[in-house]
């Protein structure tokens, strides 16, 4: 531990917005290729990165493309050619990439992309919710959520290592909450360039298009005879990403002193009621947990960091002693059984011998503020459910006018 502290001491403390932290991480990653198109609230990331390119601080081929569809297509090409490749996007930009998201993962290209979460239109909205990346949850991309700018910075490097790991070879999204994190300034501890370079190593994929001595065909037809096998191999790689995520988190902790896992447990050990949440809202919820604890209420929190691969076994283990769980979803599935985090977590718990009661809160759509009061209200409802032993309503909308 003393070694960890010593390493952590070498870091620089900077005041950065989430976007600045991610752009800085990209400078330190120094990808071979970045192809990007601006979209609020992500624009700053690639804009700041383009100044690094213009100032000669990075040796990156920067391709300003005409759309997000082209951005993702360009990085698919460059990643297949053997270049470490990145892009960034938000909301409708991610939606425009949709077709190529599946091609990137299906072709097993370890592209890493910051996604600054923003509501999908319509009505048009530029503020945070998770409807964009939640829609892409079955696209075969690893999805890592960040609570704050520090986590966004740290997750970027880990995502590169996870994506490029020979057992994985899958693309990865690192998300932040639009405006709340992307434009909010915080203290971020940053590592020096050399430490990052050594941690990342060089990009290597088993086969690349520019290896003229070993020609390959990328993206051929695979019909009834081979498509299914390709997809099962992809699912297997996603499962294999789980131990890799933990291994790399441990390695990164030795450099940074900061601990990462599939999720963070906050005062969860002895909790009677708990909230499960992704992203920046976890920070607000922790304050509520502390306040309730002062009243003697055993409230806890689980902040999910890795949504894909979905760590269902570990979640079950971490939550099995809790009486009532409230899952906060920042996106809706419109008359499915609750939001995506809720329905997946609830399904994961189905075969437990004694399972917690679970209810769902859909909140913060289109950037609607979520405050201490609303989260406290949710916890108090969980306590009521604990009393009655009954969940009356699966989906509750938190903070909406009727």
């Amino acid at each position, binding site marked *: 531990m003393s070694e960890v502290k010593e390493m952590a001491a070498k870091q620089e403390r900077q005041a950065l917005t989430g976007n600045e932290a991610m752009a800085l991480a990209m400078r330190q990653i120094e990808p071979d290729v970045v192809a990007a198109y601006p979209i609020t609230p992500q624009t700053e990331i690639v804009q700041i990165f383009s100044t690094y390119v213009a100032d000669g601080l990075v040796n990156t081929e920067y391709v300003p493309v005409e759309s997000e569809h082209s951005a993702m297509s360009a990085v698919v090409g460059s990643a297949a050619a053997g270049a470490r490749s990145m892009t960034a996007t938000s909301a409708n930009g991610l939606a425009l990439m949709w077709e190529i998201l599946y091609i990137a993962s299906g*072709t097993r290209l370890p592209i890493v992309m910051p996604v600054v979460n923003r509501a999908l239109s319509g009505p048009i909205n530029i503020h945070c919710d998770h409807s964009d990346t939640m829609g892409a949850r079955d696209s075969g991309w690893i999805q890592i959520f960040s609570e704050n700018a520090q986590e966004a910075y740290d997750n970027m490097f880990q995502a590169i290592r996870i994506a490029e790991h020979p057992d994985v*070879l899958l693309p990865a999204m690192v998300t932040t909450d639009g405006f709340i994190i992307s434009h909010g300034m915080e203290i971020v501890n940053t590592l020096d360039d050399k430490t990052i370079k050594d941690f990342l190593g060089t990009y290597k994929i088993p*086969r690349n298009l520019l290896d003229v001595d070993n020609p390959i065909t990328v*993206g051929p037809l695979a019909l009834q005879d081979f498509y299914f096998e*390709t997809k099962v191999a992809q699912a297997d790689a996603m499962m294999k990403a789980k131990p890799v995520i933990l291994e790399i988190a441990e390695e990164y902790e030795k450099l940074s002193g900061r601990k990462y896992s599939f999720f963070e447990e906050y005062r969860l050990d002895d909790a009677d009621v708990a909230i499960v949440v992704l992203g920046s809202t976890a920070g607000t919820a922790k304050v509520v947990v502390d306040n309730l604890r002062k009243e003697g209420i055993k409230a806890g929190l689980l902040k999910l960091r890795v949504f894909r691969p979905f760590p269902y076994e570990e979640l079950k283990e971490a939550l099995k002693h809790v009486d009532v769980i409230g899952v906060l979803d920042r996106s809706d599935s419109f008359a499915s059984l609750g939001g995506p985090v809720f329905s997946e977590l609830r399904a994961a718990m189905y075969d437990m011998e004694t399972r917690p009661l679970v209810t769902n809160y859909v909140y913060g759509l289109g950037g609607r503020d979520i405050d201490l009061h609303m989260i406290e209200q949710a916890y108090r409802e969980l306590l009521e459910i604990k009393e009655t032993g009954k969940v009356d309503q699966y989906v509750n909308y938190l903070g909406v006018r009727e």
Partner: protein
Amino acid sequence: MTERREMPIKKGQGWKTLPHGGIIPEGGTAEHFMTGDWRTNRPIHHRDRCIDCMQCWAYCPDMAIIVEDGKVVGIDLEHCKGCGLCVAVCPPKVVALTLTTEAEAKKND
């Protein structure tokens, strides 16, 4: 027809051993696929008129013009899709390639 190499991916191969992401770890594997049966038109090569300018060889998208010792000796009908490009690029004063229907050509096979 030159001898065919072995296909790097085997029929019936399972997901555990297949290369990642549908990649075919070798070039030129199109020779394993008999695209000739897609054909509705067939080019006929007239050796007696041919000046071996290689226009047809350069333009054929399926590498179906068979050349030996610098001379066009025929068309690989297992792969020729009958697009007619070779016929179009054969110099007009030469006309060493003509196009006929597959049905018509079959009568003389």
